[in-house]
């Protein structure tokens, strides 16, 4: 039985909007050209591949449902009260295989010594065997290294063969679309002669496929990134956190976009008292320190949730509301920058001849704004969206650290860092939770930064002229 959270619905609306934009952009030369310029940049396209992988994981995690319970009677099916997502199904093994407490990456023994009963009835303190990590080994102390190497090798072979098949398929498609023979297309790929950065894309796809297959193969037998305090697999947590990061980065922009565009357009076009009011509004909001406004609002939400705890069916629903609320608040604190840019640009554009002509013909104000001004502001909107994304992903971690971020029950990189922070004092230190969160976040943010650089270079008219 499907469950649709508000954020799920919004994220699919966003996906729909992106597809509509792609269809729209295909037909217009002035949009196709800059996107083609982006596609020709190898670094940007490699980053795009990484982003797509993150987005696929995030979308899989956004399809929620109540799983079917195996009932004794075949006639009526009952549903569990738990909410799971498609991603949970894919990663079911990782989710279920929990240990008692901390264990290091790829370990077969627990991290700390535990009391165990011997068969003779005596108790000793020793490193206990893990329930799942390396459970297939008879003598992990001797075999584990050789076994891990073997598993990595098998994963490598699988990954290589899959990426080989996929690359040949891409080259085959390319040869068909460019009307050349397969061998010619292959040579062109090797020499990097296609204008679009196909070579870089194929290399990136292959590398990610190979590393994913190695990690997958290892994760069947070990905890690749160890386990946390309650014995949950860190790799699973890190993957589940992808959705939160993506949502914060994208929904915030989606929420604030209508306001920023409308206000910016109106202030610049009508001027006079409307301009004064809007300027006053954004200066006031801007002058409140962002973190404090977020903190105050989250405090208030907590009070609200505390007083209305009966209105929520599940913890997930509550966490989801808080996530949405956080996006709205982040949107309120961040729309002012875009609004100011749009206002300045509209002020310039309204003096241009074609706007004057439209006014002379008696075109209404609203259609002038929508038909003549808005399309000419879209490049600013586009650049702002992609540049803001990475900053918002990083902000989530910081906000969760001060407990004004997403709900503590939600999987997020910020919560992982927050939970693992205290373990730095342990000897030897528990570093894997922190490392996993930072690496996953770093890869996403780096990819977003590289991609946004390319988009800015392609769309910013000031840079394009040079």
């Amino acid at each position, binding site marked *: 039985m499907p469950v649709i959270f508000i954020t799920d619905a919004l994220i699919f609306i966003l996906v729909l909007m992106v597809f509509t934009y792609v269809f729209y952009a295909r037909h217009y030369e002035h949009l196709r050209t800059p996107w083609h310029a982006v596609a020709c940049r190898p670094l940007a396209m490699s980053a795009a591949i990484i982003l797509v992988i993150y987005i696929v994981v995030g979308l899989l995690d956004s399809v929620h449902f109540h799983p079917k319970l195996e009932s004794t009677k075949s006639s009526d099916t009952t549903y569990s009260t738990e909410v799971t997502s498609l991603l949970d199904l894919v990663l079911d093994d990782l989710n279920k295989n929990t240990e008692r407490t901390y264990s290091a990456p790829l370990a077969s023994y627990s991290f700390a010594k535990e009391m165990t009963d011997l068969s003779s009835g005596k108790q000793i303190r020793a490193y206990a065997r893990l329930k799942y990590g390396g459970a297939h080994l008879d003598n992990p102390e001797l075999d584990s290294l050789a076994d891990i190497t073997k598993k990595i090798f098998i994963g490598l072979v699988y990954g290589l063969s899959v990426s080989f098949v996929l690359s040949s398929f891409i080259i085959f498609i390319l040869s068909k679309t460019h009307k050349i023979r397969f061998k010619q297309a292959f040579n062109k790929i090797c020499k990097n002669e296609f204008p679009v950065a196909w070579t870089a894309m194929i290399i990136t796809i292959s590398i990610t496929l190979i590393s994913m297959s190695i990690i997958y193969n290892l994760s069947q037998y070990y905890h690749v990134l160890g386990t946390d305090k309650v014995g949950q697999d860190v790799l699973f947590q890190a993957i589940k956190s992808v959705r939160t990061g993506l949502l914060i980065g994208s929904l915030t922009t989606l929420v604030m976009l209508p306001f920023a565009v409308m206000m910016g357009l109106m202030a610049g076009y009508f001027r006079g008292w409307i301009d004064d009011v809007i300027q*006053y509004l954004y*200066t*006031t*909001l*801007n*002058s*409140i*320190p962002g*973190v*404090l*406004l977020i*903190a*105050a*609002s989250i*405090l*208030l939400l*907590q*009070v*609200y949730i*505390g*007083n209305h*705890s009966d209105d929520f069916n599940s913890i997930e629903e509550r966490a989801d509301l808080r996530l949405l609320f956080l996006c709205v608040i982040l949107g309120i604190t961040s729309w002012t920058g875009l609004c100011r840019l749009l206002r300045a640009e509209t002020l310039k554009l309204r003096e241009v001849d074609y706007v004057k002509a439209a006014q002379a013909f008696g075109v209404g104000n609203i259609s002038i704004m929508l038909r003549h001004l808005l399309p000419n502001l879209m490049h600013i909107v586009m650049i702002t969206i992609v540049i803001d994304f*990475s900053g918002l992903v*990083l902000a989530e*971690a*910081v906000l969760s*650290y*001060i*407990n*004004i971020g997403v709900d503590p029950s939600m999987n997020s990189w910020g919560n992982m*860092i927050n939970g693992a*922070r205290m373990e*730095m004092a342990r000897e030897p*230190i528990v570093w894997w939770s*922190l490392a996993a969160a*930072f690496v996953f*976040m*770093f890869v996403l*943010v*780096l990819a977003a*930064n*590289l991609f946004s*650089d390319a988009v800015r270079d392609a769309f910013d008219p000031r840079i394009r002229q*040079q």
Partner: protein
Amino acid sequence: MISYILRRVAYAFPILIGVNIITFVLFFVVNTPDDMARMQLGMKRVSDVTITNWKEERGYDKPILWNKDSESIKKITDTIFFQNSVKLFVFDFGRSDSGRDIGHDISQRMWPSLAITVPSLILGLLSYISFGLILAFFRGTYVDVSGVILCVIMMSISGLFYIIGGQYLIGKFLHLVPISGYDTGLHAVKFTILPIFIGLIGGIGVSTRWYRTIFLEEMGKDYVRTAKAKGLSETRVLYQHVLMNGLIPILTGVVVILPSLFMGSLIVESFFAIPGLGSYTIDAISRQDFAIVRSMVFLGSVLYIIGLILTDISYTLVDPRVGLN
């Protein structure tokens, strides 16, 4: 000039009133004092008597906007709005929900904040401007390209990583300076080195790249070409013309944050246990002390607006093309 400043200050007042109303609505209308009391005292099983007592102790039992039981002027002054929000305008912050004098706390705690933020700002400006200038000087070469790539990588790393990693590496592993804490007087120096240094590293990526862009934009202008055509050396053009003109947007960008330095940095202060205004705010947030959060929102807004006014003034001082009107 004086009339210009006065006019700018007059413009600032409506904004402050707006901020005040927003915080008032957030803290007293959206959530009533009853909700706050319940939150502080525990969610359920709180008797009405304890809630009334709690509100009475903090003066939250008064009417919100209009006290019809009082006489003459007290109809307005003896209300929550007047007591808790209007008084902020004269920087009378009142008492925190736990009973401490907020104004006194702020005057005590701003010094540790300044001890971190002021050196960070000065050292940061010096190093970022030099890095930006170096990259701009070597534009198009491998130095520039690898520098920019390094910047992008560094700005993609979470700030928390720099703090946690730096604390571990320098404080615990190398045992150079204490990990966290604070001391009075000159002893404070050894506690401030690490936060300042880490703040410096964390800002390199974004700032260096931004300053490089500013300098490159400046280098593309006509006067630079003229200076080169006159036969001036590359370094002379860079230091005398590009640097001086590039400093205008950089310094005016810095002026706006100058007053906010009092507020300190939330994250850095709480990680390094520095008793400044940043950690004061964080503590208030986690203890859900609404009075302190409200005061800090107002104080932050005032400082930001002062920053805006200073920016406008500094523009008119630095750039003669900007008029006083």
